[in-house]
Structures are given as structure tokens and as C-alpha cells.
């Protein structure tokens, strides 16, 4: 029995240790250990999910199975045994023979991973031709068959296109076809659906799963989304800070996690928030706004109307390109609308940012997705938070410092951070500083534009809890822009669903999330992965039935 298993083992990683040299500003270069003695085995044709937060070492391990390290990353210990031989002993030549032939890689953003200068087909068959495993004609035939299997439109001719002529979800499938084309034994999927909209993700996920099943290729599936990995993996390995936390069958990990950390990952979205009923007087009303960029005839917002009530949260949800961020830009005056008005406390706000008095600017604050680029890297946390205090309230010296300390306290960070620079903070801490900066202005409304999208689930959860607490204390309202429905469920009082520039569904949370649904909201809701084995098949089946019914 044990012998049989040994024969079917494809990849056997033993005590893998990976290090990197980092260059912290103003300090001597130092060595850090990214992966501490991790071991794993993967049988032929099986899928192992690697899951963890950023910095867990999951991508690093995935790339190590191809003998590759990004930047200054080095494999300093252990063995990576693939098909019975230690690939780390093969040297550069050995790696080149293995990459693209025995192991292929599917990157997170196919849009960036395809070379914009070459046609898709040339890139898809490149590895196959390089390793001489098939003639060009045979490789192209194989590629077209794979395009068909991955349900790409026009499989015969899509290869003639350039990457920019194909959508993101399609590119991700083409990249999967590219990996499968050279008939490897192992594919490393590195967050292949993370950059996609939920409604696109489900199709790509199903296509990848079918392709893995039909070609009997083994896979390392790297993601931070446990619900996604539960759909495709046979086994799941949980990693944290480069160490193994738990490794087991998919069912065991999501149903009976043994480690506390795994349990936290599984139950991450359970935030309790009692929905508040909208009052009678919204303090901010958006009425029939229509907006476009430049002199374009394409309207990014079409006749959008929403109301925001004091101390409540309006979640605006939709796919990329649906106009959610444009709505925020129209409200703040960054993009003056062509038609419609924004009323604040019963009076209309000036369309253009430049025409608004300081007091109006103070009342509307923003927090962004990318906290690192929203802060001046050369200013300390104290200066960043203190700036709105000086600008809006004229606070100086000790008074200002006192208020900065209070704000740091509110975001649960403490005075010790006053003299730190953004580069010294973690992603979650950076976002907290941005929250403190917006709170410093004592606004009535904070617009949160995908503020948790770039964060790991547990960190994002902390931020959401903080936002809810602050809302209670300060009675501030949020316009919460997100594509993540789980986030919406946990914090919203009312919801606006946007699709192609229009609000397709709007109302109190309990109404919006209760049937009967319109077609788009139904699609959106049914696309959110659930932490349940077999969800994907059920969702796809439900979708086919719906389209058959039409």
C-alpha cells in the first residue's frame, strides 16, 4: 500500500527552506527566512490547495517547485523531488528543461502575464515548441482543442488575437490553456481568479476544474480564498508566516479545522451588524446623476439616485466598470456630473470640487483601496493625521498632538506610531492611519472605496469591525464601495447594486438581499463562492437551468 503511494507521488518537497535578502531603508541588508522547513507531497493527478495570508510563503513554495525565486529569493535548504529526482541539483540548465515542460505556471493577472507584443497563439505554443515536444501544427491543434475545452469563444481564431483584444476572464483561460498545452505533470495556479469579478470567477473556476479533471494533471492551487480552494482541491495546506499550520483533506479543513488559525480563516466573515432602518431625512441626496469622462458619449453613470442617512452605511456593489467609483468621484466633485444634483443638508453642493467651500470639503472624506499610495511616504504618521487638524480646525502644537494621540487611540494603534513612516507599517496599519486621517476632519460622510480589497481576510475583518465601532462612536455615515458581497452583508444598512452605470436594485439590506431577485442581482449573489464542497457544481447547474428557462 505504502509502496503504491510512493509510486504515484509526483512532487515530494522535503524540509524546504527559502530565504531572501531585504534592504530596509537606512539599515544594513539582512537575511529573512520566508519558508521554514515545509514538507509536502502531491500525488499524480491530485490538487493541493495552498492557502494563507500574504507573506505566508504560498507563492514562494509554488515557484520553488519550478526552481524559481522572485527577486533575491533563494532556496537554501531541503529537497524538491519531482518525478523521482531532486530538481534543485539540476542547476540552471536543469531548471530550463523542467520549466514549461514538466511544470507550468498560471499567474494571478493573465492580463499582465501575457506579452502585449505577441499574438496569443504564439505565446501559448511557445513552451511546447521550445522543448520540442510537438511540431507547430500539432501544438496549435492541441491549443485549439484546449481553447474549446475551456469554453473560450471562437476557439479556432482567438489565438490570432493580441492580449489587449481579449477580456480578463478569457485571458485567464487562455493562460490555463497555455499551461496545459505542453502537457505538463504539474501546474502551479497562483491566485488565478483573484483579479476577476465574482461573476467571471465562477466560470473560470469551473473551466479550470474541468480541465484539471480531464487532463489528469496535478496542481498546486494557491489562493487566499478558502471558499475558492474548497471547490477545486483534494487536500488543503494552511500556511502562516512561512510555516505549516495544518494539512488535511478539504472536507476536514473546512468542516473540522484542528488549528485555531484555520478556524479563524473558516469563520472569517462572521461579523454581526444589526441593520438600521433608514430615517426620514437623508443628509446627502444624489438625484438623477449622469456622468461621462472627457467628451465621451459613453455615460459611466446613468440617472443614478441614492440617499445617505446620518450614521448609516450605504453599500454600493457591482463589478469593475459598473460605475461605483465614478459615483464617488461625482459626489466629491472630482468628476462634475453632466446632469443631476448632489444635495447636502438640504442645499445643493457645487458640481466642481474647486467651487466648494472648505466646510463642504471637510464634511466629505475619502479612504482608498491602496493605503500605501494614499499617503506621502516621506511624512510621519503624526504629520499625516495632523494635517487635516491644521487645515480644517487650525490646531497647532500641543493641542494638535493631543488630538493626534486620541485618533491613534481610536484606531487601536497608540501613541508609539506618531513618528513612524508609512513604509514601516503593515497593510492593515496603513489603512487604519488613513481612517484616522479621514476621521480627523470630523466628517458627516466617509466614502470608502474598496478599502478592504487589498487586505488579507483576517486583517480586512479587523478594519470592518473598527469602521463599525467608529460609526457608533462618531455617528459618521459611510458610502461603502465594494465588489465583495460578503463585506456588504456584514456592514451595510442599505445597498445599491450597480450594473453598467445604472442602479439596478436599491433599498434596505434586508430587502435587497431577499428574493425575488432581478436577473443581475441573482447572478451576482449566486456567484459568491460558499465554503461548501460541491458549491461550484451546484451554482453552475443552477445557472444552466436559469438560462434554459429563459
Amino acid at each position: 500500500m505504502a509502496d503504491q503511494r510512493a509510486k504515484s507521488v509526483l512532487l515530494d518537497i522535503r524540509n524546504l527552506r527559502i530565504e531572501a535578502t531585504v534592504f530596509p531603508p537606512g539599515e544594513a541588508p539582512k537575511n529573512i527566512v520566508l519558508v521554514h522547513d515545509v514538507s509536502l507531497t502531491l500525488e499524480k493527478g491530485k490538487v493541493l490547495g495552498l492557502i494563507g495570508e500574504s507573506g505566508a510563503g504560498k507563492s514562494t513554495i509554488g515557484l520553488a517547485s519550478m526552481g524559481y525565486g522572485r527577486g533575491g529569493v533563494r532556496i537554501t535548504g531541503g529537497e524538491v523531488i519531482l518525478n523521482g529526482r531532486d530538481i534543485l541539483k539540476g542547476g540552471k540548465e536543469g531548471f530550463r528543461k523542467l520549466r514549461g515542460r514538466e511544470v507550468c505556471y498560471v499567474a494571478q493577472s493573465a492580463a499582465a502575464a501575457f506579452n502585449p507584443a505577441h499574438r496569443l497563439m504564439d505565446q501559448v505554443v511557445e513552451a511546447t515548441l521550445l522543448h520540442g515536444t510537438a511540431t507547430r501544427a500539432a501544438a496549435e491543434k492541441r491549443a485549439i482543442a484546449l481553447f474549446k475545452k475551456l469554453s473560450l469563444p471562437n476557439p479556432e481564431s482567438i489565438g490570432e488575437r493580441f492580449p489587449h483584444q481579449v477580456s480578463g476572464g478569457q485571458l485567464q483561460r487562455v493562460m490555463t490553456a497555455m499551461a496545459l498545452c505542453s502537457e505538463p505533470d504539474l501546474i502551479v495556479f497562483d491566485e488565478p481568479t483573484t483579479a476577476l469579478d465574482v461573476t467571471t470567477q465562477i466560470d473560470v473556476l469551473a473551466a479550470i476544474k474541468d480541465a484539471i479533471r480531464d487532463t489528469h494533471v496535478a496542481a498546486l492551487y494557491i489562493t487566499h480564498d478558502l471558499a475558492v480552494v474548497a471547490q477545486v482541491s483534494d487536500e488543503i495546506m494552511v500556511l502562516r508566516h512561512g510555516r505549516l499550520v495544518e494539512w488535511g483533506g478539504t472536507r476536514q479543513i473546512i468542516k473540522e479545522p484542528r488549528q485555531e488559525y484555520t478556524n479563524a480563516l473558516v469563520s472569517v466573515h462572521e461579523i454581526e451588524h444589526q441593520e438600521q432602518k433608514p430615517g426620514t431625512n437623508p443628509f446627502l441626496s444624489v438625484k438623477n446623476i449622469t456622468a461621462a469622462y472627457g467628451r465621451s458619449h459613453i455615460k459611466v453613470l446613468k440617472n443614478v439616485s441614492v440617499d445617505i442617512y446620518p450614521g448609516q452605511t450605504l453599500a454600493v456593489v457591482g463589478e469593475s466598470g459598473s460605475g461605483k467609483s465614478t459615483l464617488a468621484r461625482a459626489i466629491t466633485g472630482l468628476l462634475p456630473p453632466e446632469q443631476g444634483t448632489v444635495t447636502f443638508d438640504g442645499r445643493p453642493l457645487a458640481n466642481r470640487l474647486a467651487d466648494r467651500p472648505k466646510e463642504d470639503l471637510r464634511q466629505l472624506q475619502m479612504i482608498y483601496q491602496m493605503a500605501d499610495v494614499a499617503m506621502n511616504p516621506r511624512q510621519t504618521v503624526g504629520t499625516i493625521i495632523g494635517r487635516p487638524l491644521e487645515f480644517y480646525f487650525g490646531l497647532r502644537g500641543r493641542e494638535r498632538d493631543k488630538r493626534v494621540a486620541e485618533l491613534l487611540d481610536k484606531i487601536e494603534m497608540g501613541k508609539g506610531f506618531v513618528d513612524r513612516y508609512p513604509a514601516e507599517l503593515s497593510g492593515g496599519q496603513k489603512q487604519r492611519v488613513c481612517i484616522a486621517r479621514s476621521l480627523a476632519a470630523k466628517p458627516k460622510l466617509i466614502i470608502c472605496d474598496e478599502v478592504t480589497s487589498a487586505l488579507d481576510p483576517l486583517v480586512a475583518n479587523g478594519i470592518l469591525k473598527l469602521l463599525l465601532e467608529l460609526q457608533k462612536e462618531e455617528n459618521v455615515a459611510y458610502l461603502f464601495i465594494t465588489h465583495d458581497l460578503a463585506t456588504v452583508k456584514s456592514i451595510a444598512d442599505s445597498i445599491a447594486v450597480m450594473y453598467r452605470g445604472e442602479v439596478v436594485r436599491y433599498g434596505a439590506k434586508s430587502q435587497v438581499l431577499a428574493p425575488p431577485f432581478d436577473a443581475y442581482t441573482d447572478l451576482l449573489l449566486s456567484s459568491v463562492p460558499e465554503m461548501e464542497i460541491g458549491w461550484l457544481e451546484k451554482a453552475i447547474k443552477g445557472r444552466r437551468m436559469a438560462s434554459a428557462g429563459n
Partner: protein
Amino acid sequence: MSSPIVKLVAQRIALGILLLLAVSVLIFAGTQILPGDVAQAILGQSATPESLANLREQLGLNDPALIRYFRWLGGVVTGDLGTAMSSGQDIAMSIKGRLWNTLFLAFWAAVVAVPLAIILGLIAVRYRNGWVDKLISGLALASTSFPEFFIGYVLVYFFAVKYQIFPGISTVYDEMPFGERMQAIMLPAAALTLVVLAHMMRMTRAAILNVMQSAYVETAELKGLSAFAVIRRHAFPNAIAPIINVVMLNLAYLIVGVVVVEVIFVYPGMGQYLVDHVTKRDVPVVQAVGLIFAAVYISLNIIADIAAIVANPRLRHPK
């Protein structure tokens, strides 16, 4: 060809023509500001008020500046660049041969310099931060840092005086056989190559290195391509636009900036012609040469722009 490209290219060409017109106005205005006029310059010491007035009448210098400008421009457009004061020769005729000489020299310098610079740039990226990269960068920088007359004289000292392989004075004439002509331009072409090499090589290196950070370069490496194949097939095609730009700038320099090298090697090209007539204060010749240099400069830059547009797959293959 698709419509966005045609539109962009047409735009660039129209802008170039407009720019050239503006330059012609500047050149004309500049020569008007100078004290004295052509009549005075022609008559020199022997000028009497009557003869001056006669000559002015004869040359049409009494007409308003605007009319004279359009008369000059009209001549330029129809190929009549006027008459040189110092020799009384037709400028267009004298320039023809010299322009051809300058282009001949620039062409052969470019044929060596451009591929060499790009290949050295590729090699520097392949062995980046290693000793090969540092050696290439160091030598290229050194050759650029020396002034061109110094390089010119060093070349003359070794190859013309000490070893007598090539002539130190690059005299060429119309009926000269091709082989002899090539031998004559060898040293000035080498000097020019050394002057422009480093700039192109370093920009090529920088442009490719910029692209080497891209995710698609990692994809190529993970397909098992060799380091040089990754650079050549995946990085270089995406760095082509900035490289073309710097190549064109240097080509323009080879034609417009050769003055010093032509004077050192006594090469009968445009640069030497210009210097000669500046010393003689021959305004019509300076005007004509200035306009031709401007035209060359602007057209090469337009070509660079157009090449960059055509090299962009997003414009070549719209959605």
C-alpha cells in the same frame, strides 16, 4: 492599415509641417534682426548711397518683410534657395553635392553605430550588474565623455600618422570610386560612431531593463526560455518605442551635429559649408542650411514618432 494609425500619423505629419513653417519664420526673422542687409554686404566698402538704393531696388529689399518672407519661402518650396553672396553661385546647386556627402557619412556611421549600440545594450542587460555590463557601460561612457575633436585627432594620430592605414584628410569628389570613398570616410565615420554609441546603448539598456520587471518576462522565464531569448523575444519588442526615439535623435545628430568632425577631417559636407559661410557672413547660405537642418531634424523625429505608433500593438490591432 486601420484608421486610428492613419489619423495619428497624419496628425504627426501635419504638426511637423507646421513646426517647419514656424522654424522658417524664426530663421527669416533672425536674419532680419542682424544689422545691415544683403545689398550692403554685397557692395561692402564700395557702397555709395545711390548704388545701395539701386541694388536694393533690384533685389526687392524695399518690399515689406512679409512679402520678402513669402518670396523666400516660395523659392524654397520650388527648390530655389537663392544665390550665395560670397561666390554668386546658386545655393541649391552647391548644397546638393554636400548634402549627399553628409548623408553618405551619416549613413555609414549609423550602419555601424545603431546595430552595435543595440547589441551592446542587449548584452549589457543579459549580464546586468556583472563585469561585462560594467565594462560596456564604462567604455561607452568614456567614448562619449571625450569631446569629438579629441577623438578625431586621436584617430588621426594613430590611423593616419603613425600607422597610415586611412587618410587623415577625407577629401572626396564626385567621380570617386566607392571603395576609395569608403576608405576616405573611415576615420570621420569612426569618430561619429564613438560619439553617438554610448547614448543609444545606455538608453537601450535602460528601456529593456524597465521592461524586465514585467510579469510577462517572468512568464517567459517560467517557460524555460534562455536568458537571452527572454530579452530578445519578450523584453526587446516592448522596449522598441523609446529605443527608436533615441536612435532617431542620434541619427539627427549625425547629420546636423557633424560640423566639428567635418571641419577636422576637411570633409566637404554641409557642416563645413555652414562654417565657411558663417565666417563670411553669407546670410542666404546660413538661412538655407539652417532650414535644411531643421527639416532633417523634424522629419527624423516624425519618423521616430510614427515608428513608435506603428510598433504599438494596441494601435496596430484595435479591439
